């Protein structure tokens, strides 16, 4: 059945307002400068709230449409008409976009609200809200585009906003470096995405979702082309979502203000990669190898992230590696295909709630601990910050998958689907996902216990930790409610996501291949989680040493990010550095690993090439003569040879 999106009419013909409102607010905040100093943050919050309300209205009008035609496509204007290629500035509002819109604006609104309190003492609050609104607008554009180019426009927009926000405190060198690293690593991913777009145009003659999917369905492209296309999109997705091998920027991005970490680097932007793959599901489903690669990336990253998460001592870094790992689950889900697409999306939504809640909770802790982030110097905080403790605890129980919290409903089915993948790979990926669940339980228990329980290990200057103001705790509570209810709501209620998304992933699930049954999977997972939890509890019940202790090879490796940076360093950076030596001035401090190596390579060749620019006109003339010789010889060789 060819994919076709009906034109929007009625209420849905105004979906462009979703993007326009936060964008207008961002423009006002950034352009009018000091005039908006007093009420700017309120405008920022209000604009996101307005988008959220609109999102709800649109959601219900979309529900009102009959099921097979549940999509609205809206062409605003011709964006880039180049000959045969007509790129339209068009929006698509379908069930998939709808839930992303609700997630972005809903969680976004709560985090905006929180940020009013969190940033109240910061001079740059107006600028912060300007960037923040810009981010929301770009993210909405990303999920609302009806073709890959518009998605890419949003994609770059969120990248830019994230870069600006990570380095928001530009006077901290670490923040500036992290911003740079994020930008450059994302460019690597973006290059994959751009190349994929051009390849689509070359293969299908269009970059519209509908045309591309129909092209795939009607075998308009060979399997190899689809594989390459998918791998390029996957590269883009890995860059944005912090998946292996482009994972290194995400933990460093925690240098930004905490609301940024919560919104961009936990709930929304980093899930853009999952969105991209889910959106391109006809393409990914069309090639089995491609799916296997996605699953492998997901499985590897989820283990990778959870192992490192267990060895970090910075509260935000633990959460960041946890994000990397949880997105690994989502990749696993979208890679499995079939019914698992919806599972991945459910996990994405649930994760959006509990991870945002965890980050905001971490922010609340830091707020009272004078911006310290070292969990070895926390402890016993539950007495002083009960609301934070309770909400953080709910998020914690949710992420490790204790029933009936949302993580249980979202993660377990993914593990089960992984086991039920056809062939021996099912056992492999299933075990990886299961092991990951145990590790998650371990590191999250460690984090929770070290922060809130056990003896106080505070630094001297902290006397009375206090609970955060209401403007910060209300979002915490609301998000905690979300992390309790979301899972059950999305799976069993009339709002269940599987049915809702059926028009998007219209391929009926190829079930029937069952290695293990549902109850087996759930039971096993539960046991593994309990083991992880117990180990964590036993080890860290009495606190931990405030300094780093000598450790065995596993922990040491995990502390060193599993040698990810070192791997990059030896494979990419060293050769590049040898090439350059000290030939050139190169501002490479702090951009490590892959990026550094590439930069050094480019810089090195740049330094060498630069020596041809002597400044003497006779040597310029000589190079022109050489060029003339080459061009004449080449022309003759091509034409006559």
């Amino acid at each position, binding site marked *: 059945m060819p994919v076709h999106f009906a034109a929007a009419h009625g209420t849905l013909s105004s979906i462009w307002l979703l993007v326009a409102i936060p964008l207008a607010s961002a423009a006002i905040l950034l352009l009018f400068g000091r005039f908006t100093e007093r009420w700017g943050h309120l405008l920022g919050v209000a604009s996101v709230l307005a988008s959220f309300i609109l999102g709800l209205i649109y959601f219900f009008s979309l529900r009102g449409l009959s099921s097979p035609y549940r999509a609205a496509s809206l062409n605003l204007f011709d964006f880039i008409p180049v000959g045969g290629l007509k790129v339209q500035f068009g929006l698509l509002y379908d069930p998939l976009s709808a839930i992303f819109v609700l997630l972005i604006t809903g969680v976004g609104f709560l985090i905006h609200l929180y940020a009013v309190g969190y940033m109240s003492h910061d001079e740059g609050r107006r600028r912060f809200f300007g960037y923040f609104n810009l981010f929301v607008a770009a993210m909405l554009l990303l999920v609302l585009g009806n073709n890959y180019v518009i998605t890419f426009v949003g994609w770059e927009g969120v990248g830019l906003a994230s870069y600006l926000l990570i380095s928001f405190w530009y006077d901290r060198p670490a923040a500036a470096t992290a911003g740079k690293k994020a930008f450059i690593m994302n460019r690597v991913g973006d290059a994959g995405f751009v190349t994929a777009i051009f390849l689509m145009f070359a293969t299908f003659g269009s970059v519209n979702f509908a045309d591309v999917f129909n092209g795939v369905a009607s075998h308009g492209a060979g399997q190899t082309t689809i594989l390459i296309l998918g791998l390029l999109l996957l590269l883009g997705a890995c860059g944005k979502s912090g998946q292996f091998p482009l994972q290194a920027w995400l933990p460093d991005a925690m240098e930004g203000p905490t609301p940024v970490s919560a919104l961009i680097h936990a709930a929304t932007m980093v899930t853009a990669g999952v969105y991209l793959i889910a959106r391109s599901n006809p393409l990914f489903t069309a090639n089995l190898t491609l799916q296997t690669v996605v699953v492998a990336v997901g499985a590897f990253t989820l283990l990778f992230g959870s192992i490192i998460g267990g060895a970090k001592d910075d509260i935000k870094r633990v959460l960041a590696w946890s994000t990397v790992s949880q997105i690994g689950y989502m990749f696993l889900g979208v890679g499995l295909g079939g019914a698992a697409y919806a599972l991945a999306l459910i996990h994405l939504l649930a994760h959006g709630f509990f991870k945002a809640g965890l980050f905001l909770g971490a922010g609340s802790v830091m707020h009272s601990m004078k911006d310290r982030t070292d969990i070895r110097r926390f402890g016993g905080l539950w007495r002083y910050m009960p609301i934070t403790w309770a909400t953080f605890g709910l998020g914690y129980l949710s992420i490790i998958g204790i029933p009936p919290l949302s993580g249980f409903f979202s993660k377990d089915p993914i593990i089960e689907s992984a086991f039920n993948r056809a062939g021996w790979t099912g056992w492999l990926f299933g075990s990886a996902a299961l092991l990951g669940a145990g590790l998650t339980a371990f590191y999250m228990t460690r984090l929770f216990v070290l922060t809130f329980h056990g003896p106080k290990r505070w630094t001297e200057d902290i006397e009375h930790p206090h609970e955060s103001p209401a403007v910060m705790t209300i979002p915490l509570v609301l998000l905690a409610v979300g992390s309790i209810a979301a899972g059950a709501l999305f799976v069993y209620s009339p709002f269940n996501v599987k049915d809702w998304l059926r028009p998007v992933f219209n391929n009926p699930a190829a079930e029937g291949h069952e290695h293990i049954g549902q109850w087996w999977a759930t039971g096993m997972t539960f046991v593994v989680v309990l083991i992880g939890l117990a180990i964590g509890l036993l080890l860290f019940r009495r606190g931990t040493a405030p300094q780093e202790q000598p450790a065995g090879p596993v922990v040491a490796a995990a502390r060193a990010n599993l040698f990810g940076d070192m791997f990059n360093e030896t494979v990419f950076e060293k050769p590049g550095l040898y090439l350059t030596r000290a030939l050139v001035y190169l501002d490479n401090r702090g951009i490590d690993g892959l990026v550094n190596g590439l930069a050094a390579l480019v810089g090195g060749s740049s330094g060498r090439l630069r020596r041809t620019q*002597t400044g*003497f006109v*006779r*040597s310029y003339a*000589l190079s022109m*003569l*050489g060029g*003339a*010789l080459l061009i*004449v*010889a080449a022309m*003759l060789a091509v034409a006559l040879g």
Partner: protein
Amino acid sequence: MSHSILAAAAGQMGTGEKVFFWIFGPLALIGAIGMVWARNAVHSALFLVLTMLSLGVFYVLQAGPFIGMVQIIVYTGAIMMLFLFVLMLVGRDSSDALIETLRGQRTAAILIGLGFAGLVCTAIARAMGSVSAKGLDAANQANGGNVQGIAALLFTKYVFAFEVTSALLITAAVGAMILAHVERRRENRLSQVDLMKARFAPGNYPGPKPGPGVYATSDSVATPALLPDGTFADRSVSKILPTRELSGAESAPKGTER
């Protein structure tokens, strides 16, 4: 212009033309190489004159008397002579260093130059086998003569390009004015009275300046004259001449000695 020259048939070369070609061809080449090779700017200019004259002869030989004459009169006659005047006025002994400072520049230049020449020459030589030369006869007949033919082209097909050349000339003139003409401003202009006052102001020597010294060993303009008391007359040496002693910087070790 004799008809025997103009009558060279299409695609063929008369004996006379061949003889002239083999005389002037090498001359043109020698002139071109010599122009690049010569160390003295005046010699270079004269070599260039030789090349241009030879080219003029070629044009005439190939039934283009007008352009041949223009080549000789305008290029060799006017432009190159002007060039020589300027060289003479500026002084033929310009002290530009001819030592190549860029490593490998000369070798590379010679190699690439020879390569380019070799490539283009062999390619053209190969191509010539299948090219049929037309000659200018038909074109010269069409409008009743060579000059008339050129005129016809200039005023029909290329009239716009021809007119636009005037823009080029204006630009050149404006450029020359910009780069060479120092405007004397009214407030800087001195009257006769001012000039006279300046001449007899204290510190100025109103009489003619003494000439440089003339000795048995040297009559260079850089040698100062001797005053009756045996001291040097500093005024006898023009100030624009550089002092001939090595300065401290010049005699300092350059890092090239063993």
